């Protein structure tokens, strides 16, 4: 469960003071906390683990890693994303 999924940042914002952004994971989009990669900007590829970007990687690395995860059936976290989304959770702590 320590694997991270690479994705591309498509938007950034502050969510009640917390650096946040939208990240595209091979077509699935989701809110991600960017507090641990404060230098990240729109267009950057990041490794995302349980909703938090933990490092910035280059585009080629992101593509390779995503393909490798797919080949190894290691995209469980995308399934959790769907379950959370089905429950109406966007994932930034969210205003009530």
């Amino acid at each position, binding site marked *: *469960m320590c694997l991270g999924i690479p994705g591309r940042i498509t938007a950034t914002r502050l969510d009640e003071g917390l650096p946040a952004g939208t990240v595209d994971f091979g077509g699935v989009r989701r809110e991600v906390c960017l507090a*641990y990669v404060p230098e990240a900007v729109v267009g950057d590829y990041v490794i995302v*683990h349980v909703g938090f970007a*933990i*490092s910035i990687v280059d585009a080629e690395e992101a593509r390779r890693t995503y393909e490798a995860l797919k*080949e*190894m059936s290691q995209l469980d976290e995308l399934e959790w994303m769907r379950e959370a989304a089905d429950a109406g959770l966007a994932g930034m702590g969210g205003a009530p």
Partner: protein
Amino acid sequence: MKFLSEYRDANVARALVSRIRAEASREWVLMEVCGGQTHTIVRQGLGDLLEGAVEMIHGPGCPVCVTPIEQIDKAVHLAARPDVIFTSFGDMLRVPGSECDLLQVRARGGRVQVVYSPLDALELARKHPEAQVVFFAVGFETTAPANAMAVWRARELGVANFSVLVSHVTVPPAMIALLESPDNRVQGFLAAGHVCTVMGWTEYEPIAERYRVPIVVTGFEPVDILEGIHLAVRQLEAGRHEVVNQYARSVRRTGNRGAQDLVARVFTLVDRKWRGIGEIPASGLGLREEFADYDAERRFGLAGIHADESPLCHAGDVLRGRMKPPACPAFGIACTPEHPLGAPMVSTEGACAAYYHSGRYRAALPLEV
């Protein structure tokens, strides 16, 4: 072999296998401590390809698998409470407790919600002020920054109906415990790439020095792992024992400082039980006293819950590298992914499930001692 031949980088992988085999003057024993690496090694059959040159022991690299049974029982207890919405990463739901798992609690009407991020759980708490929302905070150092942030934000935003059931573990103390055990066979380690993305590798340097074992920070793709093994074998052949970084595209020596800082503000080192292994001193993270209000164990008075593991399950021997999963009498018979006895059969990153799903157990059986 079948899988490796289908793999994109099959030629690179084959060249690395040849090089490792050519350089190894004897069979070296290496351990990976990362469930993602275990999954790759077993699924790609790397153990068979390297037979005679390297034996890979699959260490306690899956946080789901090392979560002690009594923490599962506490989770089950909380999830069954009518006032609680229990939230967890998806892979904890099928981990068997003493009597049942979280999925069964859900089937009986317990409110159990899978979340992707711990901040999903916090959001749920704010949407349901009438309920107590508990998040199952498990994981290695990779996950700790996310879980620390959820607690930090709960306090910052004043979300009083949110708490966490903490079962965090850290990798280096487990490596030390394995190295100090009298029957240790491990001569070198592959360290987990994403754990080190957060933590860096400075804490591995004294371990490599003191126990004279090479440690290679390694990614989780087949070529990464073969490169990591090669870097370890090269050191062993030369009598060296250093920490080197194979996974430079994600890991820096000092790791992610911002993430480490928040973890240190929210959590402190505690003694922690590892399923199948027992208590390892200072091997876990617990909430600091100033965050005690967010500790589900205190809020709901769970200190009295204790449990022992099934004697039929040899997860401890598997996690310590004393037994390969197919050698377990319960493997594939009393214990399957559908009806697991122990956590390593549940998680896709558990060694037992990795063997089971790859169908490698038939081939692996005759190799067992």
